[in-house]
């Protein structure tokens, strides 16, 4: 058997032991797990990094509601979202944590809403609430990685839920957390399908356009110019880490940052494997999420895009403004 395989097995064994030992201790009633309230912030903000090494119980309070808001400067849309946000807030936990979701559906909702956390655990993890009701879900975050949580395919399924804003990311970190970096961002690409209309109209959902994969908007963080009007910020020399999700449902995203290379990419958010290095554009499948990192080498405005470039005309872009000193040995006009 190759040495590297044995080494990996030992490594995996060690990690399992590290994860399992505290879990067993907690299950056996030897240690009482800490209870933590999840920090639930609006994208592009990311909850604080995890530094603990013991599993905890993380309480996540989510409320579904329906509201009319701007999708672009021209048009409004009736969003169905979580905590008044599209995308839903990013949830950050550690492998081995118990996640307790308190899921409310606002009383003036017209629809029953649900959320599916099945990708972050073993088995079904669906929570459903009728208007004005509340439901609870508890699951163990058994798999490390970056996952999309979303309105689910449970019957009767109406894709309008997913396509109106019911999606977000859940990060299940390895024990002890990820390596610290200077800045972290949360960006979610999503598609909106609407009937045509005039400026200032509230445009209704269009199932025909979904079926024809004819998106009206493809946006980063819930509005056509969310990250253009309020750019992300960092400084030269800082490493930025991006949690980049693709809600879909029709288009795979080719994520690229104009003027920068992704130094490290964990495809599909899988942190159990070594990252790809030096990547210009990386594929993010529908319903998938990716972790990418790079160090800012030059000051200026950098554009994060889905490099399927016609989609940038529908909103699939955002800006990162890097401040700091220029580096003429790297980049200089003649």
């Amino acid at each position, binding site marked *: 058997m190759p040495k590297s395989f044995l080494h990996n097995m030992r490594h995996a064994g060690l990690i399992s032991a590290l994860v399992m030992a505290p879990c067993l201790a907690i299950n056996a009633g030897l240690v009482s797990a800490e209870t933590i309230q999840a920090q639930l912030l609006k994208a592009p903000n990311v909850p604080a990094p995890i530094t603990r090494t013991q599993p905890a119980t993380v309480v996540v309070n989510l409320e579904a509601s329906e509201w009319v808001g701007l999708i672009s400067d021209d048009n409004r849309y009736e969003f169905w979202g979580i905590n008044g946000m599209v995308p839903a807030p990013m949830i950050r936990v550690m492998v081995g944590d118990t996640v307790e979701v308190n899921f409310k559906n606002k009383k003036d909702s017209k629809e029953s809403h649900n959320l599916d956390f099945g990708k972050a655990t073993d088995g079904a993890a669906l929570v459903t609430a009728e208007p004005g009701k509340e439901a609870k879900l508890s699951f163990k975050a058994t798999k490390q990685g970056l996952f999309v949580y979303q309105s689910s395919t449970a019957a009767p399924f109406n894709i309008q839920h997913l396509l109106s804003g019911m999606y977000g990311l859940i990060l299940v970190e390895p024990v002890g957390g990820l390596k610290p970096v200077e800045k972290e961002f949360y960006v979610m690409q999503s598609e909106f399908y609407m009937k045509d209309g005039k400026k200032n109209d509230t445009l209704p959902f269009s199932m025909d356009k979904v079926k024809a*994969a*004819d998106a009206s908007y493809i946006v980063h963080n819930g509005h056509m110019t969310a990250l253009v009007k309020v750019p992300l910020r960092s400084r030269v020399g800082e490493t930025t880490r991006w949690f980049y999700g693709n809600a879909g449902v029709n288009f*795979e995203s*080719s*994520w*690229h940052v*104009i*003027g*920068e*290379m992704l*130094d490290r*990419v964990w495809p599909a958010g899988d942190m159990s494997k*070594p990252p*790809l*290095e*030096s*990547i*210009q*554009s*990386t*594929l993010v499948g529908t319903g998938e999420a990716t972790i990418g990192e790079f160090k800012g*080498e*030059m*000051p*200026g*405005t*950098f554009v994060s895009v*889905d*490099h*399927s*470039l*016609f*989609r*940038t*005309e*529908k909103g699939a872009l955002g800006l990162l403004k890097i401040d700091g000193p220029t580096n003429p*040995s*790297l*980049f*200089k*006009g*003649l």
Partner: protein
Amino acid sequence: MIRVMLGDTVEIRMKNDKNSKESHNIDFHAITGPGGGASLLNSEPGQESGGRFKMIIPGVFMYHCATASPSIPEHVSNGMYGTIVVEPAGGLKPVDREYQITQSEFYTKEGGKGETLEFSYENGLDERPSHVVYNGHATALVKNPLKAKAGETVRIFFTNVGPNFVDSFQILEKPFDRVYIEGSLTAPPAENVKVTKVPTGGAVMVEFKVDKAGNYTFVDPVGNRKDLGAMGLLKVE
């Protein structure tokens, strides 16, 4: 295709022909800095611009025009793209044959045989191409197949310009021996890959040994893309 080494300084002079109607620039995915150099490399018709850039990341990269007027995707759709390979120090391992294939889509209005077809921004937005081609023409690599001899190892630098489609690259007759996923030359390659997906604005390097004589067929197997031109031949003698 431009070929340089990690650590090289590349000096680019960008001329725009005096008969051009549009201003043009270039965004090199291999360049670290605003616009991938586009901020320095914009040239009006009849003018020239230039920049000096250090190559700090190895890989297979696309470069393309990124002028916002009339729109970036229009400049890319119309043919303003190429490939730059930044080799690791000491270069890539030698192989017997190297080729570069670029897949791109063209978006035109409909028209009769013999006509010059106009660009269609609408078809671009709808992601409905009229042509999906290898190396700039619907039959470029069918009329002039790539060539190799039995027993040789072939390397292909494959670039997906888009401007819309994520490509699937495949040889019908055999798997690729090695695929350098997303053009990364530092990560170990995937092996024995039948079809590889290439993101838009991305690239991949593949290598394979051809054991037998005959015609080998490259395609993008998705939907009707090969009918729109995404097909090429490798003739092995």
